[in-house]
């Protein structure tokens, strides 16, 4: 694919194959493998069901040794898909913790420079009692009040207290620091097992927030096969989460 524009931000090269024409209000959905692979399953489902087009990729010297092959052609493991008012940053591989943190910060800058209205991340919040939870809740963490109101109208609940560990923690912290609008939607999930049910619940909330119709029926129908298919990515992601001490999220928050 030809290069329309490339720009280095925070050590990552953001490459666009064509002008990113995204309707307003524009959203950038940032997805990295995390708890229950909720983020990866959600993003993959969005790309497939909304027929989003591959419009760019992100290169990093840290990931230069990995290539994803699609229909005989090499692709970056970090790709950008675009359609309607949405752009999705997606990856098929687990990313080392240090790279995740730098990437999250760079994505905030990229979204700001490209004029996106806000960043959304659909991820999971590990629940030790997940096996017995019949109705999953989706919590939100917002970088400003306006987004908090939008999240609540969509059915998300305020995450009143807790600890976040990983790329999404960096994303929201950097967004606040840089004055950019970002929203984390965190659905109750298994920590170490892929959780398509949690992804479906998160997508339903996102659907109301973004005003996009998203059919999650197929996702729930194929949930078991998705779990088998994503088993290895989950195993690798669990290793990464262990390195970044993701288990700290289970700790009760000490209000000081």
């Amino acid at each position, binding site marked *: 694919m030809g290069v329309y524009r490339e720009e280095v931000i925070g050590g990552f090269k953001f490459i666009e194959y064509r002008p990113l024409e995204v309707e307003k209000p524009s959203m950038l959905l940032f997805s990295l493998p995390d708890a229950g692979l909720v983020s990866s399953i959600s993003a993959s489902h969005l790309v497939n069901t909304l027929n989003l087009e591959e419009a760019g990729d992100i290169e990093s010297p840290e990931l230069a040794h990995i290539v994803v092959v699609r229909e005989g052609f090499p692709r970056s493991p970090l790709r950008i898909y675009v359609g309607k008012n949405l752009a999705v940053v997606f990856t098929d591989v687990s990313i080392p913790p240090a790279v995740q943190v730098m990437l999250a910060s760079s994505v905030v800058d990229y979204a700001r420079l490209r004029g996106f209205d806000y960043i959304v991340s659909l991820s999971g919040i590990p629940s*030790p009692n997940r096996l017995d939870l019949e109705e999953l809740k989706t919590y939100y963490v917002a970088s400003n009040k306006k987004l908090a109101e939008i999240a609540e109208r969509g059915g998300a609940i305020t995450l009143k207290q807790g600890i976040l560990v990983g790329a999404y923690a960096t994303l929201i912290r950097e967004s606040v620091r840089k004055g950019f609008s970002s929203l984390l939607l965190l659905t109750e999930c298994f*920590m170490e097992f892929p959780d398509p*049910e949690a992804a479906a619940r998160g997508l339903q909330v996102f659907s109301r927030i973004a005003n996009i119709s998203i059919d999650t029926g197929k996702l729930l129908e194929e949930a078991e*096969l998705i*779990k088998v298919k994503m*088993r290895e990515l989950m195993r690798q992601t669990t290793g990464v989460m262990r390195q970044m001490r993701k288990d700290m999220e289970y700790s009760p928050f000490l209000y000081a």
Partner: protein
Amino acid sequence: MVTSDEGPLDRLFKRIEKAMREIEEAVTREVERAIKELKHEEREVRVFAESIEPLYTMRDLGDRIVIYVDIPYADTEKVNVWFEDNVMYVKAKLRSRLDIGKWSERYRGVEVEEYNLSITLPIRPRPEKTTIRVKRGVLEVVIYK
């Protein structure tokens, strides 16, 4: 224990013996850890085969050990769990054979038919103090101490 018959040399040799024992134990631990890692790497290469290892997690909740094993697409009527000493074995048949070649050319001809897992437990389980259930494609084994 230090007795009045022990001279400075005896005490010195005892200290040396103790230090040697500690070194030996540390080396044994390191070797066991290295072997475990090697076995893990070996397993990581074989992602899909006729029999696959399911994802699992083990938690110590004080009065009990809880093990969760993710067995999506398993036939819940054909899940077997058994124990030998402090090792737990799980075998679960899938509802039908899964042709992994459809997902990746790399696995052409590979069909998964069952899950197999063995876990070394920190305690020896007693049948009357163990509960097992399968819910949402997850096997839960609770072993009370």
